[in-house]
């Protein structure tokens, strides 16, 4: 395999990984909400749980950004 082709394949895999990051997070929240529904929580309780999760995700993202100096 010539180097240009090998690099192109690698870039294709990178693109796929980037998209997986995007859809992976969507899947995570869908699983979370479905789990809350399955537990039989009321809408208010589901919202409270989800709001707490938003705070967690926000803090997590903030930490990741600060770790990289921004």
């Amino acid at each position: 395999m010539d180097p240009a082709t090998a690099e192109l394949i690698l870039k294709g895999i990178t693109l796929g990984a980037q998209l997986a990051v995007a859809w992976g997070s969507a899947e995570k929240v869908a699983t979370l909400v479905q789990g809350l529904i399955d537990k039989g929580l009321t809408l208010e309780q589901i919202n409270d749980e989800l709001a707490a999760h938003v705070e967690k995700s926000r803090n997590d993202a903030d930490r990741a950004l600060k770790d990289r100096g921004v």
Partner: protein
Amino acid sequence: MKKLLTIIALAFLPLLAACPSVPQLPDSKTLPPAANLALKAIVSANAALDVAYDFIGSGVRSGAIEPTQGRAWFNTLDGYKAKVKAAQDAYAAGGFDAAKAQAAGTEALIKFLHDQAIKSLQDQARKSATFYPREEREDCPCVWLLPIGA
């Protein structure tokens, strides 16, 4: 080789096709219909916020998102988070229609930002995948990766 590249590009398409949406929320038996709708809109907006923050966090960690760009998206999201909070305050005060409108409008903005962030990553990957000197490209017996999800 052409076949292999096409397979790699297509292998990721199911990820897009199978993109899960937020599950169907059950109706509350104790809430009046307007409150039910408003609360569902707020839940949905919170779910979108969660996805978007998570996307930034994991994207920055994996190196897929450039940190300065990530911080800009993060700050915009914080503005949307305040709007969702305003919707929750309106809900708590009994303004169900206002709460629903505010939450649904904000959810649309959050999804738009998320879509733009994904598109930006796709464009970035596409640019780097096509950065070859012309003479090398002419010799390359392969196809360029299709823009996935475009």
